[in-house]
């Protein structure tokens, strides 16, 4: 049995608890947190090598076989998401230890518990366990969203918390309905039971499938449940906003997993199969309008996150291997680039003094060349211009669509990219070119402050250079997701 599968849960859990004991020793706490997060990187790489062969890792907790016990399941998709989380978390944490983590006592504790929740949501093979991990990542995120304090953060967090509490209630109703109709909560077993459900239960299962879409749509910021995102991400402390770039992807992951495994779009999930693509395109359009209307750089990046969710779900909503493969290539790209832009916006805001990241006439930056190059790199990647990975992702998506749907999808994706391009060019010229006075108001940022944002944005270059192996991996992942019988056999046939 492969015990490494549970390591991405044990490591942050132990580190989070130890950090709680070390609140009085901030230096030690910081070192522990960075060490544990760095430790996730080799572990998740190992898991990726294991899952890359197309094997399934099934880890029965307490050695109870599925469907009686809870299982952790590692497949290609899970391994990819775990590695992405580890890379993002380490770089974000390296930015945070430059000072942002001292703006509240429990940053490292919450950060580790957030990682526990995210990794758990990716690994679990049980629907109720998914609910529990969602709650862990949510309650940690409530604390992190308030990190640093201030009226705007409190206001945005209040909306976020209340909405997610209602979302949790709906999640439980969906879980209860599914249990009442199918008598199990193991995802693989649910897939079998839902496919073989008697016709009198079809209505209940349809209701449960749509309720789950509402819940995951709220997490992923799918229209019309996206309105909490710009305020929350736009006002959160920079490292927190950058870490939250993965949070919407947890919702996207849950949608992808549920509607390929439990409710396949050509079977029990046919409602979702019809609705996901139009909703995703509307999300993309709404996000593009928000990008054009933003008055602050961080709000602009937050709307770019909404646009990326629309793009991802449009790919998934096609429910073919090309669309899902394109979405899975686009997913790491957009997560890393939006996180990098959040960190960069923070660096820019610090060098503009009281003007922050508002699009107003401000003083020149202390390091216009370095920050300018980084911003240019991030803007090219985020807008989807060639040659960087955003362009490749969108190209794959446009190629995957069938001619019948092509009109809407092509026009909305391309107009959305144009909107992003216009908004980012305007933002860049306001911040870097049109400045008042000739003296910088703030000192230069040392290399340690610039490096995490630079590495995150440079990941886009790496994803372009290594595009061929990556695309091979994501296409294999899409093929694995569209053949759920392998997953079901692996989980239900696994002997402890």
């Amino acid at each position, binding site marked *: 049995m492969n015990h490494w599968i549970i390591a991405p849960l044990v490591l942050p859990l132990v580190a989070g608890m130890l950090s709680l004991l070390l609140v009085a020793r901030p230096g030690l706490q910081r070192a522990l947190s960075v060490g544990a997060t760095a430790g996730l990187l080799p572990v998740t790489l190992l898991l990726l090598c294991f899952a890359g062969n197309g094997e399934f890792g099934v880890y029965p907790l307490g050695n109870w076989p599925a469907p009686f016990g809870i299982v952790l399941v590692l497949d290609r998709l899970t391994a990819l998401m775990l590695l992405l989380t580890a890379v993002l978390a380490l770089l974000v944490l390296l930015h945070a230890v430059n000072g942002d983590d001292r703006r509240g006592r429990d940053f490292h504790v919450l950060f580790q518990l957030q990682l526990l929740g995210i990794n758990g949501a990716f690994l679990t093979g049980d629907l109720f366990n998914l609910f529990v991990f969602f709650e862990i990542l949510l309650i940690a995120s409530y604390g992190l969203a308030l990190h640093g304090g201030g*009226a705007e953060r409190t206001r945005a967090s209040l909306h976020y918390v209340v909405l997610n*509490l209602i979302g*949790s209630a709906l999640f439980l109703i969906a879980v209860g309905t599914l*249990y009442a109709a199918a008598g199990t909560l193991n995802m693989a077993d649910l897939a079998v039971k839902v496919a073989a459900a008697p016709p009198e239960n079809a209505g209940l299962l349809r209701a449960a499938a749509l309720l789950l879409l509402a819940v995951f749509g709220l997490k992923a910021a799918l229209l019309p449940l996206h309105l909490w995102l710009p305020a929350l991400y736009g006002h959160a402390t920079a490292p927190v906003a950058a870490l939250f770039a993965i949070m919407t992807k947890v919702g996207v992951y849950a949608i992808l997993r549920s509607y390929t495994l439990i409710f396949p779009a050509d079977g029990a999930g046919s409602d979702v199969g019809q609705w996901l693509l139009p909703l995703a395109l509307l999300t993309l359009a709404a996000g593009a309008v928000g990008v054009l209307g933003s008055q602050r750089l961080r709000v602009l990046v937050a709307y770019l996150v909404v646009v990326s969710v629309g793009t991802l779900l449009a790919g998934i909503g096609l429910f073919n291997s090309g669309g899902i493969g394109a979405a899975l290539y686009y997913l790491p790209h957009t997560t890393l680039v939006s996180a990098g832009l959040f960190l960069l916006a923070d660096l820019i805001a610090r060098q503009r003094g009281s003007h922050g990241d508002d699009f107003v006439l401000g003083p020149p930056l202390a390091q216009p060349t370095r920050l300018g190059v980084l911003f240019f790199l991030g803007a090219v990647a985020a807008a989807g211009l060639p040659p960087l990975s955003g362009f490749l992702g969108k190209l794959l998506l446009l190629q995957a669509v069938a001619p019948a749907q092509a009109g809407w999808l092509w026009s909305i994706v391309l107009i959305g990219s144009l909107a992003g391009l216009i908004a980012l060019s305007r933002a860049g010229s306001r911040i870097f070119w049109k400045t008042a006075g000739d003296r910088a108001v703030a000192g230069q940022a040392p290399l340690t402050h610039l490096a995490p944002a630079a590495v995150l944005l440079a990941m886009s270059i790496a994803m372009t250079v290594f595009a061929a192996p990556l695309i091979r991996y994501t296409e294999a992942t899409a093929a694995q997701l569209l053949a759920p019988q392998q997953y079901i056999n692996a989980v239900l046939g696994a002997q402890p």
Partner: protein
Amino acid sequence: MMEAVAALTLAVLVTCGVYLVLRARTFPVVLGLSLLSYAVNLFLFFTGRLVTGAPPLAGGSAPVADPIPQALVLTAIVIGFGMTAFVVILALRARGELGSDHVDGREEER
């Protein structure tokens, strides 16, 4: 009969919960969320079917009380309790920092 009473109880709880959440003042919102979570807990409990006086384990053809929804309810109650405590503290903080108990932090225009 028992089913009708159970369904009516849930309906009243959810209706009151939704109404209170839509009041858009933090205190009614917290009460509404509590009512919603009570309704959800009861609902989860009912998903194990309504049987009385039955043992919780399978034993041949005799009716059994399903133990899994009870375990789910316990988990849901604990999580709901923690979340309610958090949202109460957050509501108090919002009242202090925003100077209003409206969820948007401002009085609506009259």
